[in-house]
């Protein structure tokens, strides 16, 4: 039998220390968030509600000095509020004092934030009930809808050709996206990259880039690329490709993160190297989800390809844009009908395929 050795390991201290550190970080976060809340309230009340709504100014006065002054005021209010542990953010991070002051200030401030946001939203959107139901407006709508419901079949063959172009743009973008997406997704899967500092840095940087690329809509990518490679299907395809890689890499890497750990452990315990572990333990577990995401993405890309066409990405969208510009609503009606049909069919097919492979 072995005696308890004298080792300087105290799990209790370890846990305590972690708790303290977490508490401190939460306070920092609460301070920042409170400063933001206060700054936001001041700006919204001053700009949207006072200037726009009450004074009805067209041009809002703007000066950096004023903004900086307001910001400094917010910092003081927000920080002292958070440090007193009675603020909304303290409540959110679970470090608030449990008393009446906290309860009241949190409740009132939360409602206040909600109300001013709603009012500001109303003002900014220029909501106008009158506009929606004016007789002139209603007549225009009636004309438009009656044309849409009497589609002009004269341009059917042109529209069909444009539609096929759109489907192919989506298909090619999806197909080309597969190899780069695969490669990237392994480098953005936390469970594969976390062990080592260097790989974790790669993981982190790649994630940031992907998030950035994904946050830019395909429509905007299409505008960028139509300047770069010229208006047309090619620009549309690249725009879709870029966005597909960024979005699917995230889905793929999430699939990698949720695989069973057991087989991975078992294979790495046999002395297989990192590449072999990924290929023989990770890949077999993710083939099906990957296929399913990719097919679904093709479906999404067909829809996006139509929209991208509106800004010159080629295909049916570009055609729609042209007829809309000429105010030929019966042709527009046909195109919309065709888009709706294709989208419905694609949706159905992709759902069926995905069902079949699971």
């Amino acid at each position, binding site marked *: *039998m*072995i*005696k*308890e*050795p004298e*080792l300087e*390991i105290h*799990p*209790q201290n*370890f*846990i305590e220390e972690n708790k303290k550190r977490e508490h401190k970080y939460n306070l920092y976060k609460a301070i920042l968030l409170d400063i933001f809340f206060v700054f936001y309230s001041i700006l919204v009340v001053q700009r949207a509600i006072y200037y726009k709504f009450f004074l009805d100014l067209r041009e809002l006065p703007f000066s950096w000095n004023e903004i900086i002054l307001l910001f400094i005021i917010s910092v003081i209010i927000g920080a002292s509020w958070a440090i007193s542990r009675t603020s909304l953010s303290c409540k959110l991070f679970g470090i608030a004092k449990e008393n009446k002051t906290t309860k009241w200030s949190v409740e009132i401030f939360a409602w206040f934030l909600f109300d001013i946001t709603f009012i500001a939203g109303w003002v900014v959107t220029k909501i106008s009930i009158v506009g929606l139901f004016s007789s002139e407006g209603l007549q225009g709508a009636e004309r438009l809808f009656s044309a849409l419901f009497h589609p002009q079949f004269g341009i059917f063959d042109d529209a069909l050709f444009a539609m096929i172009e759109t489907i192919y743009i989506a298909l090619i973008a999806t197909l080309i996206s597969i190899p780069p997406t695969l490669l990237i997704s392994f480098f953005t899967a936390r469970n594969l990259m976390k062990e080592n500092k260097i790989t974790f840095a790669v993981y982190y940087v790649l994630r940031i880039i992907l998030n950035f690329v994904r946050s830019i809509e395909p429509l905007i990518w299409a505008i960028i690329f139509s300047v770069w490679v010229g208006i047309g299907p090619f620009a549309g395809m690249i725009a879709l490709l870029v966005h597909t890689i960024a979005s699917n890499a995230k889905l793929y890497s999430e699939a990698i993160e949720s695989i*069973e750990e*057991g*087989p991975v*452990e*078992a*294979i*790495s*315990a*046999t*002395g*297989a*190297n990192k*590449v*072999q572990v990924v*290929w*023989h*333990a990770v890949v*077999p*577990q993710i*083939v099906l989800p990957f296929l399913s995401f990719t097919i679904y993405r093709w479906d999404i890309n067909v829809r996006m390809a139509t929209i991208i066409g509106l800004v010159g990405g080629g295909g049916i969208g570009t055609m729609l844009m042209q007829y809309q510009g000429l105010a030929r609503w019966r042709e527009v009606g046909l195109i919309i009908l065709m888009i709706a049909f294709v989208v419905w069919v694609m949706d159905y097919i992709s759902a069926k395929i995905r069902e079949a492979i699971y």
Partner: protein
Amino acid sequence: MLLKVKNLHKIYKSGTHALKGVSFEVEEGEFLVVIGLSGSGKSTLLRCINRLIEPTSGIVEFQGKDITHIKGEELRLAKMKIGMVFQQFNLIKRKSVLSNVINGKLGSLGTFESILEKYSDDVYQEAYRCLDTVGITDKAKIRADALSGGQQQRVAIARSLMQNPKLLLADEPVASLDPATSNSVMQYFEKINKDLGTTVICNLHFLSLVRRYATRVIALRAGEIIYEGAPRDIDENWFKTIYGEEAEEVEIR
């Protein structure tokens, strides 16, 4: 001496002190069984030995060499000599039995070769030999998840045999099997131990299995070794010390 474990400690990030200075030695050819209540640190111990997890302090010496501080290629070579079998089998479900067995050989195959899955005839022959040892050559082409639990565990054993291991670790290999199947799977471990001379360290729950297969027993309680000796010496008193006053022995045949 095949394996020497010296003063091993493991503290998980959560603060759990799972191993508190465990030391023991294993001779070549032994069938060592580790027993203890759930949470006593049995799995942790096995995982520290083959470095699936990193021990906090202490030394594991395998074939006279410290393997707790090696890295990279050297660690990979050490892992190749230590096989491991898990409670949940941990096979690749969608792959055939044969590919699962060949997976045990990956360490000594080239990366490129193993990605293309173009193996030499020798590799296939060896895989069939390993399947033969556990008596399921007829299932070689079937998907792994189409097999019963006992059959899957035999495939997992065959996979570790592909490594030609000096040491075979088994973490409750029969805990999710019924009694009859448990015994048949344990017999394969016995056969490997006796015929191939592979040293086995196995975590087990049932004392009847322990008495039947172990050549030596270690009992853990709360991360410490409280008993070390022959299986037949575990009497009523020791049993109560290991499993607590309320415990009663159940038979499994």
